[in-house]
């Protein structure tokens, strides 16, 4: 006899072989390595954490000012400050291993060899669930070519990373391109297991009195709810173009925003700038998503992936 009791909806997701208890991750660079948030929320309730970008060697980052608030968004030009992969493995990863959550390590470098180096160091390390390969930071250049905006460079880089690790490889795409689907296909062809999108839009703001850019770096990456419509559109386009699972992000503040991305075709979502505005945002989103599924009588969040009706 079928039970009439409302059963708890299933939020779990299998993402490129990584089991997530729910589809809500934290976006790279907006959650540190988890430590600071452990004071505020129960990390065990997250689907997973995508850590701040890690490079082979430590990077000190850009001079200040590094951030500027914009309408419903913010610009940042942190310059990928990070302690390097060795310190990450020694000091940061052990903390995250105390929790039963997926840990995706965001990696980047200044040249192909850097990327491969970090990927190799992380291969087989217990506690690392997968790699998110940042080919989309506006500040990472290779001989004048930005990996994330050149199809050939992206293909070579992602193929090389693919060979360097047995971990699931997720390519993080840049939105600053004419055709996101071309990059999605390139990442697939290079053997990636999934895609993350979007990274920040390249932006700029100027102080009209001093006539200087608001950021010492001149330009920076625009994030936050301002960019959400662009992000949803790109996730939708990429989902139609390739058969890979997607992590959708860009301006997610509420569970409704997160579900927009899932309907557009994302299997999981990442919450970025919202963590600054409301440090409980991830948990509020998980709770809201669960309530929504109950309310709509949907058994599993997986039933919603890509289910936007564009008749």
């Amino acid at each position, binding site marked *: 006899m079928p039970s009439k009791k409302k059963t708890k909806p299933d939020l779990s997701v299998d993402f490129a072989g990584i089991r997530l208890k729910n589809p809500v991750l934290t976006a790279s*660079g*907006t*959650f*540190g390595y988890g430590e*600071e*948030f*452990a*004071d*505020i*929320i*129960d990390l065990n309730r997250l689907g997973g954490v995508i850590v*701040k970008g890690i490079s082979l060697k430590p990077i*000190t*980052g850009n*001079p*200040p*000012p*590094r*951030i*500027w*608030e914009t*309408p*419903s*968004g*913010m610009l*940042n030009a*942190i310059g990928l*400050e990070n302690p390097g992969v060795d310190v990450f493995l020694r000091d940061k990863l052990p903390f995250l291993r105390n929790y039963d959550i997926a840990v995706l390590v965001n990696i980047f470098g200044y040249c192909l060899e850097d990327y491969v180096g970090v990927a190799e160091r992380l291969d087989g390390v217990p506690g690392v669930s997968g790699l998110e390969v940042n080919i989309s930071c506006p500040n990472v250049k290779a001989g004048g070519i930005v990996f994330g905006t050149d199809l050939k460079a992206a293909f070579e880089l992602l193929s090389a990373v693919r060979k360097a690790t047995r971990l699931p490889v997720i390519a993080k795409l840049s939105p600053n391109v004419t055709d996101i689907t071309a990059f999605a296909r390139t990442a697939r062809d290079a053997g990636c297991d999934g895609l993350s999108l979007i990274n920040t839009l390249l932006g700029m703001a100027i*102080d009209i009195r*001093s006539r*200087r850019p*608001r950021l*010492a770096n001149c330009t920076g990456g625009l994030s*936050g*709810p301002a960019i959400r419509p662009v992000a949803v559109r790109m996730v939708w386009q990429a989902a139609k173009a390739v058969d890979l699972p997607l992590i959708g992000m860009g301006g997610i*503040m509420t569970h409704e925003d997160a579900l927009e991305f899932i309907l557009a075709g994302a299997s999981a979502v990442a919450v970025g*700038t919202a*963590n*600054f*505005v*409301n*440090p*409980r945002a991830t948990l509020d989103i998980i709770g809201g998503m669960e309530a929504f599924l109950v309310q709509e009588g949907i058994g599993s969040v997986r039933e919603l992936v890509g289910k936007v009706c564009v008749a």
Partner: protein
Amino acid sequence: MPSNKLHRAKVLLHRPAGRGYYRLVLLAPGLAAAAAPGHFVMLRVSANLDPLLARPFGISSVIAKRSIELYYRVAGRGTTLLTAVEPGRTLDLLGPLGNGFPVPDRAATPLLVAGGSGFPPLLYFSSRYGKQARLFVGSRDKECLPPAAVMKDLRSRTKAVHYATEDGSRGACGFVTDTLAAYLARPAAGESPVIYACGPNAMLASVSRLAAEHSIPCYVSLEERMACGLGVCMGCSVSMKSGGYKRVCKEGPVFDSREIDWGGKTILQVGR
């Protein structure tokens, strides 16, 4: 469960405090219990998505162990919006944040140096360690000094107040650093001064230079634009003499002045 830094605080009191400042008292027992002088909070000023980010404010006092007091100057959109908040409403609040001031040695004479709107953390400091302290306060003219009620508290709590105004309308004519320099040139007998300063960066840089000249310890509370206040966004970094950066919200806002690379660019281009 984690020790929570996130609070929904009820507004107990909110009113203009004079000289362009507002006084805001928020009920937040957990925060109040943990707050020390030099700590700050991140306060959300809007329930909507613009302005998006929370604003940092120093804690100027803990009242009855359950509430915190803030003093803020209307500086832009966020603080303008804040002025409209009525008592009884609740606000999202994160704190206490930052490292706070080091506790002064019993034998030391803290020299509190307040410029511009830098008085709030020093006001809190004075309530704990004021008896041993001297206050140096400076502004453009006497109308730009901290609010009268604040000055009264500061006067009653400290052993002496040294005023400086650029137009001479109150105390010595000149910068607060001039009165500080004058004092340091002939400190009172038996005093072993330690500087605690908060104010505009140009002032902090001068204070820091004076401290170095006289080889006395100096702690400065810095301001930088912040997104998270938690140490995760790396947005509030300032240059260190040793190379690299430290986060104002996490390793600061209070730094040993010798650590700071004052020679770098202006640390903060304020406001709009």
